[in-house]
């Protein structure tokens, strides 16, 4: 016979304003099994918890029902309270009378009646609860970072600093990511490569960090603390251990038509190449689409030139499998496709470029050696027009509904840099709103206007069309209530950013949730911004939402702190609400193992005594409690009803249904 205590929380006025808490606790005190019932202003407060502890001891309670806010909020709190008073933490049930009752109903009678039913239902469930004990599992003291941009680099460095091993998996041939492509960074205008490359070198030199460049995550198994990840090491056709990065092969290569991705396809590169001078690892890679040897079998010049014999045309993709305790997603972003924005003429005119292309055109290591020249005729542009919000804040279906956040600042940066370097250039910026929240950000933008004389036009561009070698930019000037046409030499589009598309595959593998824009969802928008709802998976950088470099680095370090917190633990308490099979009822049919997404169910031959000294050996299901995540798919699939879920047993849910339906 259970002795149940009921505790009704007022939550200040949040519950008490619409629910008659006195009456709820009074009615529930007459329920079967209830020996104590009370109400209090804030159950989760120190005093409230003390009240629960005292009642458990004084009334010898075997279980408690707390009628309060959502169990997602304070179930853990009250379980700890119960445990502190000597009660099994799983003998606690929460009736959600705030989110599911007082906050959504206005009528006091109605809300009170519903609160009573919810309380009654929790009691009905609790009557069938059994004490559960959480198991313990070990933690693999190694982290995986997917993506080697500034976010991944910072997270890896911080984790390594704390003394844990960490692997960076990067799909491209070098780490560095988007930041390596940038020329200068706002708001201080320091050179991007100058502040990024030392961090890249730190990664390469750290004994704790293993850089797996030109690799992709293929498969993820396991759970928090114990992931097993299969990684595909794509064939580079160059032995990483031998290549010295001398570059002799690049000069020898006769195929020079491959588009240079690092320079946003603005120029070409050989078929064997090192992405950029400061690449880490500084190792060449062969583009199999362009390599004559791989395509036709005739050539082999680079192999002959290579003094260390690093080139191997027979190289194949290889797979490695490693164990990790935590996984960080830092897959970053790319510039979104502009195919639905014909009006800006991006596809038709070489001199309509994206801002990232402009970064390369202004960079000393870029295709023009740092001199700003038009891609079409290599002339110096005299009039440059920037268009902001291209594809951002667009709900017409062509673009992205969100604000890409970084464009206002980088456009101001570009405008300023151009006016600084080429004072004879006219710079116009079409904007809808200027968004510059951030330390020294608005000051930066104002400097572009006031000090550098950049012409900001409030309005949007309707069409860009070619007229001879000029680009006509037609748009509205809302403040002057005019339609204007600017004859420009170069048009720069601040195109919307979007998450790197490979993130979808990775999110599915990690069962990390993703929003409609392909950004990964954080566990809590405000209070758990760097964790995914999936335990052991963390988010770093742009994969979670648009952000600039300072913000990315802050998030990356926050993410590392969370990973370190996990890896510092020797044991993790596992969820005791897992499946178990009643061996007397199980007939070993195999249905449950088929539906288990974790492979937690195996079959064992077990000997059963039949009485009279006889025994029988039967095949029965056995659940690995460390692997089972407690979804309950098997419990429904089991034809003999042998499988059940602890904490959410068939009987318990049936009792809840009955209690709710009792009129």
């Amino acid at each position, binding site marked *: 016979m259970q002795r149940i205590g009921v505790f009704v929380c007022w939550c200040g006025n949040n519950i008490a304003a619409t629910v008659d808490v006195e009456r709820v606790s009074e009615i529930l005190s007459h329920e079967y099994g209830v020996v104590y019932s009370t109400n209090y202003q804030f159950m989760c407060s120190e005093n409230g918890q003390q009240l629960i502890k005292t009642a458990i001891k004084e009334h010898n309670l075997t279980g408690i029902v707390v009628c309060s806010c959502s169990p997602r909020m304070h179930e853990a709190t009250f379980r700890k309270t119960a445990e502190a008073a000597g009660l099994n933490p799983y003998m606690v049930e929460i009736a959600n009378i705030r989110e599911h009752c007082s906050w959504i109903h206005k009528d006091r009678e109605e809300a009170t009646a519903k609160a009573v039913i919810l309380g009654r239902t929790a009691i009905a469930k609790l009557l069938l609860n059994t004490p559960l004990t959480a198991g313990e599992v070990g933690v693999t003291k190694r982290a995986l970072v997917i993506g080697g941009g500034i976010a991944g680099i910072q997270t890896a460095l911080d984790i390594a600093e704390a003394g844990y091993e960490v692997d960076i998996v990067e799909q491209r041939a070098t780490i560095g990511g988007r930041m390596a492509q940038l020329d200068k960074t706002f708001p201080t205008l320091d050179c991007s490569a100058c502040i990024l490359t030392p961090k890249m070198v730190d990664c390469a030199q750290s004994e704790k960090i293993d850089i797996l460049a030109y690799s992709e995550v293929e498969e993820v198994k396991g759970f928090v603390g114990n992931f097993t990840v299969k990684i595909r090491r794509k064939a580079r056709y160059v032995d990483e251990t031998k290549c010295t990065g001398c570059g002799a092969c690049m000069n020898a290569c006769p195929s020079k038509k491959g588009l240079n991705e690092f320079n946003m396809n603005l120029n070409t590169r050989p078929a064997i190449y090192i992405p950029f001078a400061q690449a880490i690892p500084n190792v060449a890679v062969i583009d199999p689409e362009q390599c004559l040897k791989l395509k036709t079998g005739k050539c082999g010049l680079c192999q002959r030139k290579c003094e260390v014999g690093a080139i191997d045309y027979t190289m194949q993709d290889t797979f490695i499998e490693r164990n990790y305790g935590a996984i960080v997603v830092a897959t970053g972003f790319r510039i979104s496709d502009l195919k639905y924005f014909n009006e800006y003429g991006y596809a038709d005119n070489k001199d309509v470029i994206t801002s990232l292309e402009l970064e390369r055109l202004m960079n000393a290591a870029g295709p023009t050696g740092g001199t700003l020249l038009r891609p079409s005729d290599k002339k110096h542009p005299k009039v440059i027009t920037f268009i902001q*919000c291209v594809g951002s804040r667009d*709900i017409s279906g062509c673009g992205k509904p969100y604000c890409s956040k970084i464009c206002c600042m980088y456009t101001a940066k570009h405008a300023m840099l151009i006016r600084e370097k080429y004072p004879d250039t006219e710079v116009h910026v079409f904007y*809808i709103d200027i968004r510059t929240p951030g330390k020294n950000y608005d000051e930066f933008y104002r400097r572009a206007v006031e000090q550098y004389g950049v012409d900001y036009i409030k*309005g*949007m561009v*309707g069409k860009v069309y070619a007229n001879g070698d000029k680009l006509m930019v*037609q*748009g*509205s000037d809302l403040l002057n209530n005019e*339609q204007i046409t600017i004859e420009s030499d170069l048009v720069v589009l601040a195109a919307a950013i979007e998450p790197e598309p490979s993130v979808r595959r990775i999110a599915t593998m990690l069962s990390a949730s993703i929003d409609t824009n392909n950004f990964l969802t954080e566990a809590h928008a405000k209070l758990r911004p760097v964790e995914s709802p999936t335990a052991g998976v963390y988010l770093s950088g742009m994969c979670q939402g648009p952000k600039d470099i300072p913000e990315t680095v802050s998030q990356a370090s926050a993410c590392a702190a969370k990973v370190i917190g996990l890896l510092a633990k020797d044991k993790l308490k596992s969820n005791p609400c897992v499946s178990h099979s009643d061996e007397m009822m199980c007939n070993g049919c195999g249905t449950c193992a088929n539906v288990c997404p974790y492979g937690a169910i195996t079959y064992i031959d077990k000997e059963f005594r039949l009485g009279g000294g006889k025994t029988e050996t039967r095949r029965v299901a056995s659940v690995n409690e460390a692997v089972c995540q407690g979804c309950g798919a098997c419990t429904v699939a089991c034809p003999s009803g042998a499988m059940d879920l602890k904490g959410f047993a068939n009987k318990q849910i049936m009792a809840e249904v009955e209690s709710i339906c009792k009129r």
Partner: protein
Amino acid sequence: MDNTELTNRLKELSGTNVRQCMKCGKCSGRCPMFDKMDVKPHQFVSYLADGKIEKLQNSKSLWYCLSCMECVERCPRGVAPAAVIEAIRESVVRPQGGNRLQPEEVPALLNDEVPQQLIVGAYRKYNH
């Protein structure tokens, strides 16, 4: 009908949610009749949102709009300024009574000088 009622009726008639407008002005950025208009396409949206119907009904722009739908095509927020203009135009034309074109009268009006744009526009107008 008081002004609020009229405003709501016109919002409904236009079938577009003027609150979605983020005031970027892209509609006016490419309007081919912009220079002829006294009230600009983007102003149609904001005036309707503010209930300044009389200004719109008295504007010359109503008769300059080609219904080319460029503004509808370009709007990043799914607002249709041309539909707003159309709604206002109807609110002016309809009460005049009986002077609207019947579909069967159209063939007689066709000649080489009538731009196709106008016929398409007329059908769109009189199909409401």
